[in-house]
């Protein structure tokens, strides 16, 4: 379980997280929704220790991740996999090397075993015969799928998805959502998905949290969120221009 308590974070004079509280249950898909620029990615980066909060507590499986030495933090990070917004593939490495990299560095598997695992991870995300390509030869959707393969290849307990479908066409979008659902069923990891995809995200997540003005405005099952009477949540879900959320 991941637990954030009263987390504050500012960049310069801009307050991004403002006393945020959130519990992310184990083994479920939790979606974090909210308007752009509200700090959803920042929240995700706090969970894996890429950013440190100004104040507050962050615990992973009951263990605080703040103020740790690098070696201790790395021990906790080994529970995680992360899919970045732009996939963040290593652009000087081929697709095969990208997915093989965590295996080579973190396990003592033989090169045959690594090859087998990489090919099967790529097949799980629906990619074949792309092993020798380089990231800049791939489309956005393929990059995300390679990123997903790299994130799941070590079978992590927790996977963080930073806008896994932004900028993709509707068909690929659906395919990626399907993939998250299938891999979740297959591996049973805890998933945290930052997304704008309303209403598709309600089909994937078992839990939805709405981030607004640095706090979790509402947290519940997809049905509860969809039935919410809160004006901000209502406006965000309906995508209406009229309401408390100001555009621009």
């Amino acid at each position, binding site marked *: 379980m991941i637990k954030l308590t009263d987390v504050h974070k500012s960049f310069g004079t801009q307050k991004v997280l403002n006393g945020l509280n959130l519990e992310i249950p184990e083994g479920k898909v939790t979606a974090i929704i909210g308007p752009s620029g509200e700090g959803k990615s920042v929240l995700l980066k706090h969970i894996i220790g890429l950013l440190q909060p100004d104040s507050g507590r962050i615990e992973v499986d009951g263990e605080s991740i703040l103020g740790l030495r690098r070696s201790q933090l790395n021990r906790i990070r080994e529970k*995680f996999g*992360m899919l970045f*917004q*732009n996939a*963040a593939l*290593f652009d000087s490495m081929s697709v095969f090397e990208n997915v093989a990299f*965590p295996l080579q560095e973190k396990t003592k598997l033989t090169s045959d075993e690594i090859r087998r695992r990489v090919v099967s991870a790529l097949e799980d995300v629906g990619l074949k015969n792309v092993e020798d390509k380089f990231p800049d030869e791939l489309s956005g959707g393929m990059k995300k799928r390679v990123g997903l393969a790299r994130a799941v290849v070590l079978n992590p307990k927790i996977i963080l998805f930073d806008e896994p479908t932004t900028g993709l066409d509707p068909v690929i979008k659906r395919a990626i959502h399907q993939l998250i659902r299938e891999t979740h069923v297959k591996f049973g990891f805890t998933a945290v998905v930052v997304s704008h995809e309303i209403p598709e995200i309600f089909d994937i997540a078992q839990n939805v949290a709405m981030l607004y003005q640095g706090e979790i405005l509402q947290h519940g099952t997809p049905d509860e969120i969809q039935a919410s009477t809160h004006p901000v949540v209502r406006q965000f879900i309906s995508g209406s221009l009229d309401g408390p959320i100001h555009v621009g």
Partner: protein
Amino acid sequence: MFNPVQAIGRLTIEWVRELGRMGWFILYSFYMIARRPGSPIYILKQMRFIGTKSLFVIVLTAAFTGMVLGLQGYYTLAKFGSEGLLGTAVALSLIRELGPVLSALMVTGRAGSAITAEIGIMRISEQIDALETMALDPFKYLITPKFVAAMISLPLLCAIFDVVGIYGGWLVGVKLLGVNPGTYFYEMEKSVMWRDVYSGMIKSFSFGVIVAWIGCYKGYFSGHGAEGVSRATTESVVLTSVIILVWDYFLTSILL
């Protein structure tokens, strides 16, 4: 309202913070080199990039530097009737000063800028964050191999620079202007001491540290977007060159 005292204070704090970060960066790099210098494959790849691929430009600049030294040296020495010392003048200028400094400046322009751009792009495309999330230390894969490679490559490039430069001077002095070939090398042998060679090599080694340090540092903390990386690259080249020249003065005053 603009408050000059506040502005000076803010600038000073920023400056001190930057210095602290730079100091931390080089200390942590050496700590990592001592603990695990990174795989030999990464180091060799970087040596190929920093060293081997700089060879052409080093040889070219060395040849012309030696030639111009031959030319200038000849006319100056001829005034005092001591053209025979041309070999000494060319060799000592190169070995003590111009070899280490010019080879380091050429490597800064060619490889230092590329190091900053490479690491900067990895920073803005979140590749460095990706390494961190895999519980892997980016220093081990990106920074320490470049340090080790630069510390090995620079003295080697400097040695090549010296030799090519000496023959450049020979070409102009002996072949073109008619200095006695025996005298050119004999006088050189007589007055160039091992100490001169060592001091040149020590300089070159320390310049290797500076090139890797500033190149990596500026990339690692580069700003946002393409503009951030381009600014970091420019700053990296300028700062590396300035530090090399300033450090050269102090090192010379110690080593002399």
